């Protein structure tokens, strides 16, 4: 767990006068679950978008999976998976068609697609629903499916942008089980969330306030450092300093 898979050095994004992300410096180790916490508008999504190649940084340096985010975005894209806040499957396609489509655009061979999709349906216990439209699945299932589709090409890192918003605690727990299984296979998970109980599931957590990283450590160390009994207390202590509220 000592090889950094993401290395960010003073990564900054400005929109005019507004500094959405200010000199972010951190490292993410291979195989860890890295929690990216912050209130709405703190700059989490901006930071994640820069690392995924969706947004060009204003300044700073970063590498993802060993590739430079300015020069080697195409190589980065092959090595990452991404699950956005918005639900990202096609509702008018069936479960199978969605799997085949995403596997197809990642360039998997027919044999791989067949094997992967069977595995995936197996793992979710979705045999009866494989030919059903995604529209007809409950939200919890859709999110699990979405996650497994995001890692169908065995990426080195998977970026999860508030993956569990809107689902019940049981479904959230099941979702985290899937994340653990993925990290067991060596996939690194970079997760943004605003559920504090979820941050306890992460190996390490960074907390962003107003575009800056204010704290970065394991949940246990953070609680000790801020002499708090829960991550919730840690977070609220820091978030109280926040001046901005708007979502970027």
């Amino acid at each position, binding site marked *: 767990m000592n090889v950094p898979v993401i290395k960010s050095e003073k990564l900054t994004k400005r929109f005019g006068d507004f500094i959405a992300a200010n000199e972010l410096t951190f490292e993410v180790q291979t195989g860890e679950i890295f929690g990216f916490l912050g209130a709405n508008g703190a700059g989490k999504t901006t930071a994640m978008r820069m690392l*995924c*190649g*969706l*947004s*060009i940084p204003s300044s700073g340096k970063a590498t993802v999976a060993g590739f430079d985010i300015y020069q080697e975005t*195409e190589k980065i*894209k*092959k090595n*990452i998976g*991404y*699950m*956005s*806040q*918005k*639900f*990202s*499957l*096609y*509702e*008018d*396609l069936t479960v199978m*068609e969605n799997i*085949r*489509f*995403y*596997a*197809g*655009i*990642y*360039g998997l061979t027919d044999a791989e697609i067949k094997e992967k999709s069977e595995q995936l349906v197996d793992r979710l216990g979705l045999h009866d629903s494989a030919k059903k*439209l995604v529209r007809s699945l409950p939200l919890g299932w859709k999110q699990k499916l979405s996650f497994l589709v*995001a890692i169908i090409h065995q990426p080195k890192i998977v*970026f999860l942008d508030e993956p569990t918003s809107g689902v019940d605690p049981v479904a959230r727990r099941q979702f985290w089980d899937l994340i653990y299984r993925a990290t067991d296979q060596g996939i690194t998970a970079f997760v943004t969330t605003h559920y504090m109980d979820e941050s306890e599931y992460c190996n390490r957590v960074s907390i962003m306030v107003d575009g800056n990283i204010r704290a970065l450590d394991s949940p246990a160390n953070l609680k000790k450092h801020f002499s708090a009994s829960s991550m919730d207390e840690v977070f609220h202590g820091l978030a109280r300093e926040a001046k901005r509220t708007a979502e970027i």
Partner: protein
Amino acid sequence: MKQLFSFIKKEFLHVFRDTKTLLLLFGLPVVQLTLFGFALTNEVKNAKIVVADYSKDNTTKQLTDKIEASRYFDVEKSLQSHKEIEAAFKTGKIKLAVIFPENFNHDLMHLNKAQIQIIADASDINTATTLTNYITAIVMDYQRQMMKDASIPMTITPEIRMLYNPELKGEHTFIPGIMAMIMLLVCAMMTSISIVREKELGTMEILLVSPFKPIMVIIAKFIPYLIISFFNVTSILLLSVYALDLPIKGSIFLLYSESLLFIVTALAIGLLISIQAQSQQTAMFGSLMATMLPTLLLSGFIFPVESMPLPLQVISNIVPSKWYFIIVKSIMIKGAGFSAIWKETLILGVMTLFLLIVSLKKFQIRLA
């Protein structure tokens, strides 16, 4: 390549899963063509016509009787002068005049050929064409009967004059017009809606994070609608030839090539709209405003460009469908070859190139 194929397959799945849209895509050409076609080429009954018989012999009498017997005409026999006939046309009292010249019988008996003059009010093109066709048919029929009895061939040539609109401008122009409209509807509107839908759903981000290139997204979006459009062009042409009896006079290959160019124009317009629009509704209304309205009003499809006020005539030049309309009209109706329409093709081509470059540039910027 395989990635592109997966994407195109997915686009087709979208199209085929949405039965309402599917019905719209394939049914619309048929419905529009039927509506325009049969509403405009309606058969004419009891049209008021005048027969002026200056020859007054057996043949002219028989021919007049034959015309009178037909249910299409309401014949008034009179010996009006040309001036009076023209006045009757102007006031709209008559739709057509048949004139037997004084020397009709003489010519027929001695030269074995004679002429009758048929004058039609061509301000209403469809009626004029239908009526002159009926009269010609009656004359030909009479001539065949005569030939049976006579040993020497005799010919009666109808000399047709289209009053007010000698070139019959606007004849069957609804077919090129409908082709332009359908293609804009299918390509511009459907492409823009389907791209904006990916934005709305958030799937666009996933695609942009994937190794799949943005340009490929566009190509994959284009291809299904391009194929559907070709299907539509074919169904419109088949319908117009076999159901409406409107033959294609020019080269079919040329017609398809020009249509391909226009399809690309429409796709580029759709792409441009999709970059601006944030919701599917906006994309739909944007497409309607940017494509359907100018096509209906400014392409010459419904209102002749020549009779528009000058400012509108100038504006009509930037409407791509105007040029496509002229091209299709020339090929289908006049049987024109490429040498006759290269200018229009060039204009349309430059417009398409411009639209494509602008939209691709903007698409790239949006990604940053």
